[in-house]
C-alpha cells in the first residue's frame, strides 16, 4: 500500500519534472510534447496503443525467456568447454556489433515477417548481458568449494552444475535484470525489421508523420513495460536467492 503510494508520488514528480523541462526549454510540440498532450494522445489512441502494445509485450516476453535461456546455456557452455570459449566468444562479441539493418533482410528471409524475426532481434539484444554476467559469475567461484568438490571425485560437469552454477546465480540475476530493462527496446528494434504491428511500428509510423504526442505515448507504454518487467524480475530474483542477503542498508542519510 505504502509502496504503491510512493510509486504514485514518484510518477507525479517525474511528470512534473517533464512538464518543467518543456516549459523551461520552450521546445515546440513536435520535438518534446508536454505530459498533457501525451496523456491526451494516450487516451484518444488507447485502443491502438493497447493492440500494438499487446503485440510488443508478447514479443518482449517470449524474447526475454528465449534470450535468458539461450544466454544461460551459452554461458554454461563457455564455462564448461574450452572449445566454446575459443569459438563462441568472438562470435558472440561480433554479434553485438552488427547493426540491425545489415541483418534485417536475412532475418526476414529466414524467419518471415511474423513475430519470429522480431523475437530473434530481441533475443540478440538480451542474449549478451545475460551470457556475460553468468559467465563472469561462473569464473568467480570460491576456490575452497572447488577443491572440496574435486576431492569428492566430482566430474567437471557435476561441479559446474552443483557448485559453480548456484554460486553464480546472483551474477546471473544481475544480468537478467539488465535484460529485462533492455528487452523492450530489443523488441522495438525487432519491429524495425519489417512489421505491421507493435509499438515499434507505431512509433516509426508516428515519427514519420510527426505525431510526436502519439510517439511519446508509445514510448511511455514501453517505459511502463520496462519498469514493470524489471520490478518483476527483481522480485523473482529475491525469491530465487533466499540465501543471498541483500545487504543494501535500509537506513539512509539524506543527500
Amino acid at each position, binding site marked *: 500500500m505504502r509502496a504503491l503510494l510512493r510509486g504514485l508520488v514518484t510518477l507525479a514528480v517525474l511528470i512534473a519534472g517533464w512538464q518543467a523541462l518543456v516549459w523551461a526549454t520552450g521546445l515546440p510540440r513536435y520535438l518534446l510534447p508536454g505530459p498533457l498532450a501525451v496523456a491526451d494522445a494516450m487516451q484518444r489512441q488507447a485502443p491502438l496503443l493497447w493492440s500494438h502494445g499487446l503485440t510488443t509485450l508478447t514479443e518482449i516476453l517470449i524474447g526475454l525467456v528465449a534470450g535468458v535461456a539461450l544466454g544461460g546455456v551459452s554461458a554454461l557452455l563457455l564455462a564448461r568447454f574450452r572449445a566454446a570459449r575459443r569459438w563462441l566468444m568472438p562470435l558472440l562479441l561480433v554479434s553485438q556489433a552488427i547493426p540491425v539493418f545489415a541483418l534485417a533482410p536475412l532475418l526476414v528471409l529466414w524467419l518471415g515477417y511474423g513475430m519470429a524475426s522480431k523475437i530473434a532481434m530481441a533475443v540478440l539484444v538480451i542474449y549478451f548481458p545475460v551470457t556475460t554476467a553468468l559467465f563472469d559469475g561462473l569464473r568467480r567461484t570460491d576456490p*575452497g568449494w572447488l577443491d572440496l568438490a574435486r576431492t569428492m*571425485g566430482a*566430474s567437471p560437469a557435476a*561441479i559446474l552444475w*552443483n557448485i559453480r552454477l*548456484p554460486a553464480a*546465480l546472483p551474477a546471473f540475476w544481475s544480468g537478467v535484470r539488465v535484460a529485462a530493462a533492455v528487452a523492450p527496446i530489443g523488441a522495438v528494434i525487432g519491429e524495425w525489421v519489417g512489421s505491421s504491428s507493435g509499438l515499434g511500428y507505431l512509433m516509426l509510423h508516428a515519427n514519420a508523420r510527426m505525431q510526436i504526442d502519439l510517439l511519446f505515448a508509445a514510448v511511455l507504454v514501453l517505459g511502463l513495460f520496462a519498469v514493470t518487467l524489471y520490478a518483476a524480475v527483481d522480485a523473482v530474483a529475491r525469491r530465487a536467492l533466499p540465501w543471498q542477503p541483500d545487504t543494501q542498508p535500509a537506513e539512509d542519510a539524506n543527500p
Partner: protein
Amino acid sequence: MLAAMTAPMPATPPLSVTVSRARLTYGGTLLFSDLTLDLPAGRTTCLLGPSGVGKTTLLRILAGLAEPEPPTCVTTGDGQPLAGRIAYMAQQDLLLPWLTILDNVLLGDRLRHRRPDSGRVERARALLDRVGLAGRERDRPAALSGGQRQRVALARTLMEDKPLVLMDEPFSALDAITRLRLQETAAETLAGRTVLMVTHDPLEALRIGDHLHVMTGRPAVMGPALEPSGPVPRRVDDPGLLALQAELLRRLAE
C-alpha cells in the same frame, strides 16, 4: 543407535599412504624440502605444529590440491593412485549457503551423480544427530553458529566412505565437552580407516591419535612419531599421556 552409526567397515582393506621427499616453495620461500610422512594403514596419525608451518599445505598435497615440486612422491600401499579415495575436511567449513544442512551433508553423493537413496539420507540424519544437530536438517548454513557449521562439515566428511580421511583442525571451534564427544564419534566412525588429522590440541592428539608427529621449522622438518599406547579414545587423565603431552609441548616449542 550405536549399531546404526558404527560405520560399515570400509569395503577395501586399510590403505597405507606415504608422502616422501616432499618439496614446496611459495614465491621464493622454501616451505619444506625432503619432508617425509608415513600414514600407517588403518591408523590415525595426528599432525601438530606451529601456525604457518605448512600442515595444511601437506594435507593439500595428499589431497591432490596443491602442486608439489619434484622429487615429491605420494605412494599408496596398494600402488593405486589416491584420487577418488579421499575424504577431505578443510580448515574452513566450506558449507554451500544455498543448500540445506542435510543437503550439505549429502553433497558428496550429489556431486557423484548418485541420487542419495533413503539409506544414505538415513545415515546423514543419524550423523547430524550424532553431532548434535538433530532437527536442524532443513535450516540453511547461515542460521548456524560457528561451531555448528564445523559440526556439519564433520558430518559431511564422515558421510564419505573413503579409505583415507584428511581432517584439518576438525574440532577447533568446539567447546571442550562437545569436542570430547565428537572425538569419540569420529574415532568410532573412522575405525579401520587411515586418518591424518591436523590439530593444535596436544591432548586431543593423545586421545585419538595412534601416531603423533610434530612439524616445525622453516624449511619444516617432520619430527619422529610419538606412539601413545592403549586403545582410542584414551582417557586424558592417564599419567603416561600427561608425560607425552609435556614431550609434545617441548617439541612444539623448539
